[in-house]
């Protein structure tokens, strides 16, 4: 393939592949991206994939219906382990969402233009991940129909929520996060929706995209306002990258449980979030660029960068693990000592060592350039990191709870089929959302790529 050889040439010339392969003009970029939505035949794989994920959404619906009907007792939770899969999955999904915001907001502010081709679907990933995450705190409540009591709204009971509780902070953090992410994502979509409106042949598609693009006419005034609004939202979203998972970590750190009550949680949670988020970005990017032949827009440069971020955040997370052990060993707290010993040797030891393997040992492969430049390896390592981060949440939630202060109250947690059904159901929900997203809106921002056309041709010209 000619592109491939050019890639290799470019790599030799720059040491790194470009963010957009040469040969693109404004028109080719627009054609290629919008074709996925408007004119290209939907691949059979899309239908298969969508149906499978929709099936899992069905499983989720059933699991939720049964949950509402019977109560949270259908899960494996108990006393002492009163939080199980719901909280594990909540933290996991919220963490995954973080990479999207990191890519679209922080990288925008620091002018990393390579992000342009991946920010759209990374943001979509954030949205769906936060939706999946948001489901769990609702579902895990004993009486979910009273969820609105968590909000400070005027009521006849003259009751406010308990602002001392991290769960209330969570409500604010996650709902803010979802709102900002949605706005940010949608705002970025408007010029592209207008583009689709202009190119759509189908009458209904035209009308729908017209409605959604809010009358975008591509005028300079529109662009000016758009740019400033986008930058403002990026500015708003940036602190959220740090704050949301910090608040989530407070759910644990504020409690007095050994294994939860520790000050390193906020930074270590944020790093872990970005770690798992980039893993999810890679898991989505690698097949997308392959199936839609978008490897000229999502290049090895992107994959390499994402892998480097994973490596860096993975090291921070590993440092967190080391510090946890160190504090337990060095500190005077007998309960924390036992907690650490129990993590390593207790009934859940395989989970702990699995976490160390997945999150600390295997990601070290990313030091090797050969691995970072192999989409297959990256895909496998990303899966491994997602698994590892999930195991980390199992370790934090379950092994801390199951043996705390009074040995008489110790217990075990075994997830039931309904736990698994709910978890798999959200995976399906996420996947179905991503499939719809790929099909209905441009997965890569058209106008931002057009900016890159100019830039990358300059880069080539320099050489």
């Amino acid at each position, binding site marked *: 393939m000619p592109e491939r050889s050019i890639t290799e040439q470019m790599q030799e010339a720059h040491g790194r592949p470009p963010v957009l392969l040469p040969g693109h003009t404004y028109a080719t970029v627009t054609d290629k991206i919008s074709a996925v939505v408007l004119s290209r035949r939907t691949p059979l794989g899309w239908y298969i994939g969508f149906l499978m994920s929709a099936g899992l959404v069905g499983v989720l*619906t*059933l699991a939720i*219906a*049964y949950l*509402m*009907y*019977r*109560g*949270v*007792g*259908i899960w*494996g*939770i*108990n*006393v*002492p*382990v*009163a*939080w199980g899969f719901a909280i594990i999955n909540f933290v996991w999904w919220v963490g995954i969402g973080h990479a999207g915001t990191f890519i679209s907001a922080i990288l925008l502010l620091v002018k990393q233009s390579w992000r342009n081709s991946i920010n759209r679907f990374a943001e979509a990933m954030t949205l769906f991940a936060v939706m999946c995450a948001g489901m769990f*705190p609702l579902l*895990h*409540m*004993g*009486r*979910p*129909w009273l969820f609105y*009591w*968590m909000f400070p709204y005027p009521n006849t009971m003259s*009751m*406010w*929520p*308990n602002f*001392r*509780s*991290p*769960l*209330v902070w969570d*409500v604010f953090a996650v709902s803010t996060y979802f709102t900002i992410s949605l706005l940010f994502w949608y705002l970025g979509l408007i010029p592209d929706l207008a583009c689709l409106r202009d190119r759509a042949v189908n009458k209904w598609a035209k009308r729908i995209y017209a409605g959604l693009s809010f009358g975008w006419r591509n005028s300079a005034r529109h662009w000016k306002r758009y740019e400033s609004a986008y930058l403002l939202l990026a500015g708003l979203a940036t602190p959220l990258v740090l704050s949301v998972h910090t608040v989530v970590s407070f*759910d644990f750190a*504020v*409690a*007095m*449980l050994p294994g939860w009550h520790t000050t390193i949680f906020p930074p270590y949670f944020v790093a872990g979030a970005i770690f798992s988020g980039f893993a999810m970005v890679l898991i989505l990017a690698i097949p997308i660029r392959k199936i839609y032949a978008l490897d000229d827009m999502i290049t090895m440069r992107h994959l390499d960068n994402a892998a480097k971020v994973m490596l860096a955040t993975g090291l921070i997370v590993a440092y967190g693990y080391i510090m946890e052990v160190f504090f337990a060993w060095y500190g005077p707290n*007998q309960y924390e000592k*036992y907690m650490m010993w129990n993590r390593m040797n207790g*009934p859940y030891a395989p989970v702990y060592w699995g976490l160390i393997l997945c999150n600390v040992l295997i990601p070290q492969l990313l030091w090797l350039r050969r691995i970072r430049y192999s989409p297959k390896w990256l895909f496998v390592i990303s899966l491994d990191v997602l698994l590892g981060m999930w195991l980390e949440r199992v370790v934090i939630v379950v092994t801390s*709870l199951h043996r*705390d*202060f*009074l*040995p*008489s*109250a*110790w*217990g*075990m947690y*075994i*997830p*039931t089929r*309904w736990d698994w059904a709910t978890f798999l159901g959200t995976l399906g929900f996420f996947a179905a959302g991503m499939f719809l997203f790929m099909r209905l809106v441009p997965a890569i921002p058209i106008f931002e790529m057009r900016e890159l056309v100019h830039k990358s041709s300059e880069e080539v010209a320099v050489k």
Partner: protein
Amino acid sequence: MESQVNREGPSQPERREQERVSAEAVCPTKKELLYQISGTASGKKQLTRYDFEAALAALDSGDAPEYWRSLEELAGTKEFQEQLHREFPKGASEWLDPVSRRGFLKLMGASVALAGLTGCIRQPLEPIVPYVRQPENQVLGKPMFYATAMTLSGYGRPLLVRSNEGRPSKIEGNPEHPVSMGGSDIFSQASVLDLYDPDRLQTMIYEGEIRTWPSFLGGVRGQIAAQQAVQGAGLRILTETVASPTLAAQIRGVLQRFPGAKWYQWDPVNRDNVRAGAQMAFGQFVHTQYRLTDADVIVSLDANFLSPEFPGFTKYAREFSSRRRPETNPAARPFTTANYTALPDRPINRFYSIESTPTNTGAKADHHIPVRFSDVEKYARILASAVGVNAGGGNANSDLDGKVLAAAVKDLQAHRGTSVVIAGEQQPPIVHALAHAMNEALGNVGKTVFYTEPVEANPTDQMAGLKELVSDMWVGKVDMIVITGANPVYDAPVDLNFVGALQKVPLRIYHGTHGNETAANCSWVVNGTHYLEEWSDVRSIDGSVSIVQPLIAPLYGGKSAHELLNAFGAQPELSGYETVRGYWQSQIKGVDFESWWQKSVHDGFVANSAYAPLNLRVKMTSFAPPAQTAAGNTGGSVELIFRPDPCVYDGRFANNAWLQELHKPMTKVVWDNPLMVSPNTAARLDLEQQDVVEIRNAGQKVEAAVWIQPGHPDDSVTMFLGYGRQRAGRAGTGMGFNAYQIRQSTELNSVHGVKLNKTGRTYPLITTQGFQSMVGRHLVREATLEGFRKDPLFATRVEKEPDPAETLYPVYEYTGYAWGMAIDQNACVGCNACVIACQSENNVPVVGKMEVARGRHMHWLRVDTYYKGGLANPQVYFQPVPCMHCETAPCELVCPVAATVHGTEGLNEMIYNRCVGTRYCSNNCPYKVRRFNFLLFQDWNMPQYKMMRNPDVTVRSRGVMEKCTYCIQRIQHGRMDAEKKDQLIPDGSVQTACQQACPSDAIVFGNINDKNSRVVKLKENPRNYGLLADLNTRPRTTYLAVVTNPSPDLPEAEKSEHA
């Protein structure tokens, strides 16, 4: 669908059936009655005995768990689920069953409605009608208390019963009765559930057809007349041990009328050996009472006197515990200074326990010798010879045992007149005779030991009687048998084949509250009354008479035993009230009967009716041992001990879900009877926890699941009676293993050699407490008496409690009441009475075995049992754990909706209506005392349970957290009473349910702002410490450390081994 059920869980159609039945007053359908009692309907599904073999075979292929803790790991496996499901009574397994077609449709309906409609409940139609004539003293909303008594195996337990608008709802000990002094026990506490048991017999039945009382009278009139013709030669009456003077008089009256008739008594856990021991020693039946308040040294020969099954338990527990307080001297108070050295006025007692099955009694011993059942006699002889009884002597099994025995002898001799030797109920007569002789030799008689007339109305050798009855039945001498109360088809020794013999009797009349195994084999079934529904009388262990008065009219029109017996007399229609009152009218002379009757009924006992002590001498002079001595068990053969179950007793409480779900004192097992095996024996026989073994004895066999019990003697196993019921009801049927299947009439209490064969299968034994080790944490703090005197503040030294002033925030000042509790772990005997009392008072639901396996039991108060030391003979500690009501409660901080908040009186309050069920509070509770309604555990539909519940306590629904409230409803009642008098709530007038039930006075609750309150005195005690107080929770519930009193003669090493 079946989510309403927790403990019994019948399927939906059955449930509807029962509801309909209850709704239509008491008119069950014929079909249901067939289910309940008919022998021919035994094939019906829900009463079918569960087939263990088949279900356990399913587990066979799975990985055998190494130890029971891996249960939950198993719980995830399919086989385990299946096993649990099938093991359960039908319906209980509906919890997590796959969705059936029917369920699926409902589910889809629910998914349409989803959350929003869950709040909409169909409101039942309940017309509110005012009293036309309000009963005297009745104030709606204000409970009334009535004195009565419960009878268990021939002894009365004096009670005070709370009645809410005519519904008995809570049982308490009668505080004015010298035996109870307000303390009670698990059986009486839980008996209120039996009253409202929906499985009770609801009509009279003849061959499966509903009958009425007049038709019964008419139906048997002919046979009675026929018996009259033959002087009653074919009439037999089989009762439980009768403790009612009236009933005994009635039966004697019947026997007078039918001279050929015979009366037998049968209790599977009977006191034949006690009676025979007395006969041996004194030549007559006597009843032995102890006064433990005066005993400095107590030696128990396998006597479980601190367990609720022991007659007089409440008295002995209180007396024992009163001597376990190392600072009883009031002058020594307050104990606030570190250099407290004042000696108590009466020293703490020293308790030596020689025990064949680990019990909570042995757990309280200063020196505990685990010894095989058959060796207890030998040890008794060693002790007896040493104190001057001609008993032959012998050698202890080990040097260590010998040294402990020597120390015991030394202590006994040093405390003549202030020591006591107590022999165990199940021990052979010779051990009882030896104990009598020892007490006499030590001069204890008249001081710590008293003999009185027998308390039971007609002391007989029950085993011999039952044998005679069975042989009469086999040869066809019996035309008509009346069985009242007893359940011999289930619990008679297997070699008698009682059920076979019973079939030879043409007319079999059963009278009782439940359609049990015996009822199923009788032609006439007369539904009996619960003791809360009948007039009767009973003697307590001190011989005093209590009049049993009903708290409610019979729920199903049942008849009491008195009324049944009247059918054989001249006045068949005479009521129970007239019978009992008439009997006493004939007995009481010289006083105004009406006022005597009023006072006796009101007080709960007849004044001055206790038996006077008899002055007796032991007649037996030589106790020389028989020639042969028991050889040790080797190979696959071990000694087997039968014991009444600590919770369901002999099986009569098997359908009581409170007792089924009560953690047994030593093992913490629920819903099953584990086979106790010592660690060494288990290793020798290659047995592991939960292995199913087959026990063979005299051609009979039964299966049982192994429980490795530290402190059990080697080469000996204990099997508990009362399980494996075939017709107990929805809670008890099919639970556990039936030990009666191998119990022989010749060896009722122990079998010298039985074979244990591993089946290769395992059976899940569920406990509420996974870990019984303190893993080095200072949870129960302990010192010897010597250590305590050297350093009275030892308990406060091991952990640093943060200073309350170390905070940035102003400290909240409790200006009014400040409620607090102190629990004396030295006084606690681990009897669990508090747990059941709490369950009854606070409407705590039962969740069933499988939910307990998942870790979802709901007890607001639990008793933790910890083991320390070697496996062969560990030290055991009991720690009751209610909510600590921490002043800086971790749970309150984390609740997002402020559903748990701190009251101005220091209570950690739980607002159910506000709770949304995030369970964060439970996660953050270091004591894990919070309980969550993971499913709808409470039965909201059963009409009987609606009557039973405490109306002052909210019935919690699904999805809310709950926990101990310090019985806030009782505080409110106390507050109302006090405010009416314009005064503060006086100390002691508000008692929590646990405190009130505690027979040993270990729990004290009160206002810690009142410096003269008892709770403050206890909290000022140097032994007082807060559990996990180093976490700065500042618990309001605090504990008093354990102080043991080991013999100074035993060197340290042995003390740590033994003490």
